[in-house]
């Protein structure tokens, strides 16, 4: 399948890419990993007149740890994050990177492209919502830093202006005694999840000091299950309380029926995923090594 014809521009720096975007106007699109954009172009759902390729810019694919935060370059591939030993100390980030599609897609796809795409089924936004995350956005001559919640506006919609790009993703390292887990239910590897749950918590003694729960693929944006969080925050975590949190998460979900399953099915599913992710997060917060894997139908 061939996409519509387009002119190809190779950006030499992020600044150059932003300049090209503003010069070329609305018909221009950035090309990062291409793992969302190229399939859409082949199906002719996306028909850019100009494509600005970011892949030849050096120094845009990095993972730096600095001042208690991870800084990811816009072109940092899912596979690099999956393999990073420093990122593995924040296991929920590893769960996310390692579970996206398959080896080939992870070798190309980028964290910047994923957030910019804002696919309601994308994994990164769901996971990063449970952490403290900021997105640096740049135009030709200036940049600004947005909280992830300010960056994500709606399904496939972000706060980015047409000539603005994601230049860095900043994720705070969680405090001591924290643990998190991300579990998705997938029909096979190279498809988006049917539903997913991300849980990040901090323990103090035998109590849950703080917790964030985010649900994926069950709304136009990832959903914070705040009542579920409230059920556990400050409490000694028991199976009964986890079950209440899962019920609250089911109530917070706003799924739609589609080929992946009915709305009712997804609502049931997301509660079960919250339960499993909370149990794994808790064990990790207590210092146990817990391998987490997505569930494949």
């Amino acid at each position, binding site marked *: 399948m*061939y996409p519509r014809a*387009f002119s190809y521009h190779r950006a030499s720096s992020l600044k150059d890419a932003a300049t090209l975007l503003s010069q070329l106007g609305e018909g221009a699109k950035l090309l990062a990993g291409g*793992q969302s954009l190229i399939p859409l172009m082949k199906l002719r759902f996306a028909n850019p*007149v100009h*494509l600005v390729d970011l892949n030849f810019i050096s120094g845009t694919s990095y993972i730096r740890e600095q001042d208690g935060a991870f800084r990811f370059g816009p072109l940092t591939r899912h596979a690099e994050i999956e393999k990073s030993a420093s990122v593995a100390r924040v296991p929920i980030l590893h769960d996310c990177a390692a579970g996206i599609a398959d*080896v080939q*897609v992870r070798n190309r796809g980028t964290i910047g492209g994923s957030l910019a795409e804002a696919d309601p089924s994308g994994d990164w936004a769901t996971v990063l919502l449970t952490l403290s995350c900021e997105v640096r956005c740049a135009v030709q001559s200036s940049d600004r830093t947005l909280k992830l919640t300010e960056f994500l506006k709606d399904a496939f919609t972000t706060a980015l202006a047409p000539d603005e790009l994601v230049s860095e993703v900043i994720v705070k390292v969680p405090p001591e005694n924290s643990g998190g887990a991300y579990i998705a239910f997938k029909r*096979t590897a*190279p498809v988006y999840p049917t539903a997913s749950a991300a849980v990040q918590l901090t323990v103090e003694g035998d109590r849950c000091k703080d917790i964030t729960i985010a649900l994926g693929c069950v709304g136009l944006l990832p959903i914070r299950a705040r009542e579920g969080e409230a059920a556990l925050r400050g409490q000694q975590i028991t199976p009964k309380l986890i079950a209440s949190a899962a019920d609250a998460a089911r109530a917070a979900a706003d799924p739609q029926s589609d080929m992946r399953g009915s709305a009712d099915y997804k609502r049931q599913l997301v509660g079960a995923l919250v339960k499993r992710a909370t149990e794994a997060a808790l064990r990790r917060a207590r210092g146990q090594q817990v391998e987490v894997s997505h569930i494949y139908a």
Partner: protein
Amino acid sequence: MPEAAPGVSIQVRVNGKLHPREVEPRKLLVEFIREDLELTGTHIGCDTTYCGACTVLMNGAAVKSCTVFAVQADGAEITTVEGLAKNGDLHPIQKAFGDCYGLQCGYCTPGLMISALQLLKDNPTPNREQIRKAIAGNTCRCTGYQNIFKAIENAATTMRSPSHAD
């Protein structure tokens, strides 16, 4: 909307041989490999980034070549299934797929062997679970995968042996 965008000059090294060519920007890497270079071992199955029949190594990393533009491979090193055999000798992965009946119709096989190559370069002693993850992006409609697991394990053993240089 430009009817045909200007061609772009690229140089791609495929299986060790440098190919300077001019390509239309919308040409996919898999079409470049199959049509321009006439290396038809790399297959197109789904053409939608699902099946992995088009898998090649690009600078050492497995990619689905139906989801990369040829212009993006400018300056890159590509390995296709044709690059596996050396001087007429089958690569251990090729030999193992034959010995273990790791193929039936063979449509998926080039992509699976490239995914196996990527795995065994990074991890010479993979367990079943690691093999399963490594080939999760490759669909086989014939074999049921069991013999593919065996073939990759068999290839791993051969490639670990001191007599295998490469």
